[in-house]
């Protein structure tokens, strides 16, 4: 029986012998990191071009390879200060274990429920924020599968690369609606209660439009729950829904007798439900190393592939790249895992024949060993 790690590296070596990893743009200004015991055992690596990078990968066969979002004058110098940082791509990292879902497996695993939750969040980030508010085009938002349980969005537009850490923090606060102030968005008494209209740009309009949609639904209970207002207020709003919706279109917020603080509460409640959650550290840290797109994630055997259409991506099927030749394995744990079009039933002590990609996945996750 071959120890698992050696098996994994042998499989990756076979893969990298036949396939090349794509160089990220401006490869000569990037720092690289590689690891097999940990995600990163070595960093401060640098490559002149795609060839030297692939030669390195073929000779040392790391389980994980990552590269810097940042651009440096001297990417291999150390300590960090001597690299002379120039700028950095804007990165968003979404990870399945960040979201509450109904699934009950342990944190190292994923399933369709948590993966569709993170996919949905990534789609909202793109469609509700990055495109309309920040003005990035679809082509400028490069979606990459992380190789395990999430996504990395890379934005390499020149102006975005110039965002300072403080600037990146402002972006994150925008996405999470942290620091949102109803007063700053135009809530004020001017004879009557004025606030943002549905046509307004930014968060004000987003919230007004969403509230107006909830009200148009006509369900007081639903409104009370989703907008965080009391049921009596919600009933009053629904009873006068046309006036209220008309009012919101013009930024008049007191078409019914609902107190200002209730509206402000609804405002914050709706904002929280519309905001998106991304890993703050990855976006803020302009020297962070991120999984190299088109390399293999050693913990799954999946390729960190570029994704054309996020909404249609199947994270348990599309990134399968290892072969289908049969391997005999022995189960270590009881677990059902969907991979591609089949569900593999790992059972402790049970021997079975699996396609290479499934044997790799099982070994890497500690669900089986290769005989």
């Amino acid at each position, binding site marked *: 029986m071959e120890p698992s790690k050696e098996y994994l590296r042998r499989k990756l070596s076979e893969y990298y012998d036949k396939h090349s990893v794509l160089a990220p743009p401006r490869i000569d200004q990037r720092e690289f990191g590689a690891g097999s015991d940990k995600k990163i055992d070595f960093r401060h690596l640098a490559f002149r071009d795609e060839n030297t990078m692939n030669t390195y990968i073929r000779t040392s066969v790391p389980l994980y390879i990552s590269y810097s979002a940042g651009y440096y004058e001297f990417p291999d110098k150390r300590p960090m200060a001597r690299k002379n940082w120039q700028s950095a791509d804007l990165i968003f990292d979404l990870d399945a274990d960040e979201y509450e879902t109904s699934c009950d497996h342990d944190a190292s695993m994923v399933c369709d429920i948590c993966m569709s939750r993170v996919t949905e969040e990534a789609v909202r980030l793109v469609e509700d924020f990055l495109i309309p*508010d920040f003005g990035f085009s679809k082509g400028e938002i490069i979606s990459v599968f992380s190789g395990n349980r999430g996504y990395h969005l890379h934005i390499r537009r020149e102006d975005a690369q110039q965002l300072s850490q403080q*600037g990146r923090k402002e972006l994150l606060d925008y996405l999470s609606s942290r*620091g949102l102030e109803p007063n700053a968005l135009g809530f004020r008494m001017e004879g009557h209660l004025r606030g943002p209209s549905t046509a307004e740009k930014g968060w004000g309009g987003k919230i007004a439009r969403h509230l107006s949609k909830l009200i148009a639904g006509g369900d007081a209970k639903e409104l009370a729950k989703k907008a965080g207002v009391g049921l009596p207020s919600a009933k009053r709003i629904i009873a006068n829904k046309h006036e209220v919706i008309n009012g919101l279109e013009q930024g008049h917020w007191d078409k019914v007798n609902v107190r200002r603080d209730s509206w402000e509460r609804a405002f914050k409640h709706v904002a929280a439900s519309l905001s998106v959650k991304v890993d703050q550290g990855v976006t803020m840290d302009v020297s962070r190393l991120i999984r190299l797109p088109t390399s293999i994630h050693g913990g799954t055997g999946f390729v960190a592939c570029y994704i054309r259409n996020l909404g249609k991506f199947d994270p348990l099927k599309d990134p399968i790249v290892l072969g289908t030749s049969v391997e005999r394995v022995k189960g270590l744990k009881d677990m059902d895992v969907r991979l591609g079009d089949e569900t593999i039933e790992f059972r402790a002590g049970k021997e079975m024949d699996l396609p290479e990609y499934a044997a790799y996945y099982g070994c890497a996750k500690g669900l089986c060993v290769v005989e």
Partner: protein
Amino acid sequence: MRITSLARCFRIFDINRLSYCVRYPFSSRTKDMVKLLKFDLESPDPLVVERAKQRVIDGVERNLVEPETQSRNDKILIREMLAFPLAKILASLSGDSFVKRRYARAEANALRRFLEKEPQFASQLSADLGVPITEGFVPFVAYANAAPEQYKLVNAELDSGRVRLRRQETLVEFVAELFRQRIEEDIAKPMKVPKRYTSIAAEIKGEVNRDKAYSSVKEMNLGPVTTSEFPPCITALIELAQSGAPMAHQPRFTLSTFLINANMPIDPIIEIFRPTPNFNENKTRYYIEYSMGKKGSGTKYSAPSCEKMKFYGTCVNPDALCGRIKHPLSYYIVKMRSKKQAGDKSGA
């Protein structure tokens, strides 16, 4: 003097133009004028050097650079205008991050005060600082990088990558922050200048009174302010702030207005609030400057009276003296007076 003769022969230095250049020493108009004057770093006017040095020291110690803009004398205005680039050089050469940071902030404060009176220049000045504003819109990257604390991106009208600056105050704050960052960047870079400036910068480093500027409350030289003579209600509020407990608006307002009116300098006041949860130095500074009338409407707020304090429930442990006064500040004044008298007697 070289400067005057130049000024005389060109006759281009209209006083109003010059005053503009002094108020906005980074504007492209000023840069053109400085170029025209061919300021020579090798043999500078000693008065310009002296003024530049003072500008840095005032900035660090008092958060105030007070450029001379009112003069009708072109010589004085030109000297003031040239003092700015030299002050930056000196701040940079000091190699002291405390001096650099404080100086940059003081320059930005001066800019803010001018712009609040004449916001019509803000747009042009933003462009001079490298961020053109088109029909009231700023690219979001520029905005996010210099978003003033009280006008966060999350509260901005962001659409298709642009932020709409609807209110003049937002624009003014934005330009001031842009300017502050620009100075910090400029003075972070190493500069090649004649040796003499290095020694002047070292003098600044030595002369700056850090106590006056800041450090912790305990090490603070509060000048005329003596915390031991504060009324019991204020002492309780200071203890509350120092304990790290959250403070509601009213106690916060009471404490800061009292301290302001007792003439405590702004930095120690900020230090008192430092242990409070979610403390944010910029926000606190803004808030205090606002209460001082330096920001916003310009009204200086007075501290609440004993009657109001009782109403809000912030009057605690009143003592005998409290029975004779109607305002916490009177308590302090009476105490200070009797202390001084006692001191005079014992000294005599």
